[in-house]
C-alpha cells in the first residue's frame, strides 16, 4: 500500500477522494435540513444531459479529446437545473413535483440522445453514470480542488446564514437576511457539488455521497454544526477507504463507497438504538452521567 502511494495516479485518486468526501456532505447537510435529500439525484440527471451536450460541442468543434467539454457542460446544465428547481420551490408552484420529474427524466433521456448524435455510445456515459476516479488527470485534480474550495468556503463560511434560511425561512425573512440570494447559493452549491462528485461516484450515486454521511452523523450528535463537521469527516473516511480497497481489489469505487456508507449507517443506527435502550433500562446510570 505504501509503495502504491508513490504512484501519481494513486495520489490523484486519493486527493480527489479527500476533496469530494469533505465537500459533498457540507451541501448535503443543507439539503437534508430542507428535507430535499433527493435533489442531488434530480440535478445529477440534468448534469448528465450537460455531459452529453459538452461531448456534442467538443465533437462539433473537432476537438481531439471529444469529452473535453463534458464537465463544463455538466456544470452549466446542473446550475441551470438547480436554479429552475429553486425558482419553482420559491414560487410554491402547485405542480412543482411534476415539473421536477419532467426535468429529471428529460435530462437523462436527452443525455442518451445527445451522446448518440455526437457519435458516442451509451458506454461513453457509463463513466459519468457510475464514476471513473481511476482515470483522473492532474487537470481534473485542479478543477476538483477549485470547486471544492468554493463549496467549503461558502458552505462553511456562510453556515450561520444558510442554517437560518434552511431552518426557518419565514423567520429569516423577518431578520432582513437576503433569503432568495442565500437559497440560490444552496442550489448552485448543490449543482457544483454534484459535478465535482460525478467523477468519484457517478451521477446515479452522487446523492448518496451528499446524504449518507449526514444521516450517519445525525445519529451521533444533536447539533447542526457538529453534524456537518462529523459528516465531512465520515465522507472523507468513506471515500478514502473505498478508493484504497479498490486499489487492491477489482471493485467499482463509487459503488463500494456508497455500500460502505450504508453499512456504516446500519451499524451506527443499531448501536445507537441499543445504547438508548440500555439507558432507558438504567435511568440511574443516565442520571449519574
Amino acid at each position, binding site marked *: 500500500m505504501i509503495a502504491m502511494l508513490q504512484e501519481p495516479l494513486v495520489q490523484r485518486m486519493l486527493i480527489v477522494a479527500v476533496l469530494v468526501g469533505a465537500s459533498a456532505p457540507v451541501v448535503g447537510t443543507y439539503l437534508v435540513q430542507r428535507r430535499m435529500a433527493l435533489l442531488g439525484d434530480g440535478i445529477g440527471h440534468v448534469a448528465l444531459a450537460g455531459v452529453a451536450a459538452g461531448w456534442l460541442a467538443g465533437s462539433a468543434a473537432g476537438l481531439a479529446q471529444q469529452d473535453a467539454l463534458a464537465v463544463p457542460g455538466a456544470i452549466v446544465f446542473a446550475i441551470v437545473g438547480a436554479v429552475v428547481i429553486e425558482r419553482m420551490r420559491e414560487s410554491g408552484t402547485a405542480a412543482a413535483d411534476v415539473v421536477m420529474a419532467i426535468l429529471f427524466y428529460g435530462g437523462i433521456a436527452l443525455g442518451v440522445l445527445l451522446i448518440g448524435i455526437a457519435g458516442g455510445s451509451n458506454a461513453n456515459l457509463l463513466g459519468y453514470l457510475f464514476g471513473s476516479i481511476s482515470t483522473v488527470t492532474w487537470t481534473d485534480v485542479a478543477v476538483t480542488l477549485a470547486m471544492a474550495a468554493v463549496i467549503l468556503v461558502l458552505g462553511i463560511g456562510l453556515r450561520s*446564514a444558510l442554517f437560518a434560511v434552511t431552518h426557518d425561512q*419565514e*423567520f*429569516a425573512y423577518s*431578520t432582513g437576511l437576503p433569503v432568495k440570494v442565500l437559497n440560490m447559493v444552496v442550489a448552485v452549491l448543490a449543482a457544483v457539488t454534484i459535478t465535482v462528485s460525478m467523477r468519484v461516484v457517478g451521477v446515479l450515486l452522487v446523492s448518496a455521497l451528499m446524504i449518507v454521511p449526514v444521516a450517519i452523523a445525525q445519529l451521533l450528535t444533536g*447539533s447542526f454544526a457538529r453534524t456537518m463537521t462529523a459528516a465531512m469527516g465520515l465522507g472523507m473516511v468513506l471515500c478514502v477507504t473505498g478508493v484504497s480497497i479498490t486499489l487492491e481489489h477489482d471493485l467499482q469505487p463509487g459503488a463500494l463507497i456508497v455500500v460502505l456508507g450504508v453499512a456504516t449507517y446500519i451499524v451506527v443506527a443499531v448501536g445507537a438504538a441499543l445504547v438508548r435502550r440500555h439507558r432507558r433500562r438504567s435511568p440511574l446510570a443516565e442520571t449519574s452521567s
Partner: protein
Amino acid sequence: MLSARDVRVSLGGTRILHGVSLDAHRGEVVALMGGNGSGKSTFVRALVGAVTPTHGDIRLSGRPLTPSGRAGLGYVPQRLTAAGGVSATVAEVVASGLLGNRRLRAPRHSRARVAEALDTLGIGDLAHRDVTRLSGGQQQRALIARALVRRPDVLVLDEPMAGVDLESQVAFAHALGHLKDDGAAIVIVLHELGAVARHIDQAVVLEHGCVTYAGAPPADMGVHALPGHDHEHPHADLPTADRTGLGWDGP
C-alpha cells in the same frame, strides 16, 4: 413604532387581505384576533416581510419595511415553520436571531446574548439540547428567545401560546411585561387572552381579511375566544359605535 396602512395581500390570485390597518405604539401591546381563515397569519407574514403586499404601506419606527429596516423587528412564528431534517441545539436556533441584512455571521458576543435571552425565558439549562426533542412549550420559549435576542423595538408573535403548557404561558407573560415596560411595541395574535390579558392595550379583530373591530380589549372574550369561532354576529354589519346596548360591545 409599527404602522400598517391599508395593507392588501393576494395569494395565488385570491385576495386574502382587503385593506388592513394597525398601529402599535411604544410600550403598547396590540392583540390581533379573529377566527380561522380571517387573514391573521397572512397579515403577520406581511408585517415581517415574508409576504409582499399588493397595496399599502408598512413602517417600522417610521422607516419602510425594507430588509435593512427590519433590524429592530422580532418575530415569533406559531410553530417551527421549518423543523429541519438536521438536529440543531436551542443555542444554535436562538443565535440565528442575531443575523440580519448585512450580518451573515453571528457577532462575537453572541454567546452572552443567547444565554441572556434563554435565561429570560427560563430555559438556560436547555441551551445544548436538540430543539426538536423539547416539549411544545419549551420549543415555543426557544422561538421567543430567538426573537428577544434581537432586542427588538417591535415584536410580532403569531399565537405564541397555542398548545403550550401553563408554565410556559406564565414565563411568556412575564417576559412580555418586561418588554412592554422597556418600551417595545408588540403585536400578538391570540385566540384567547389568557395569561397575557392584563398586558393588552388594544384589540384588532379581523374577519375575511377586513378589520371588524379596533379598540379596547374586551373584558371577557367568552365564546368568542374559542378556536374556530368565526366571529359572525347578528349586528356585525352595524358600525361599532351603534352596537352599544345590543348586548355585545366588543369582538
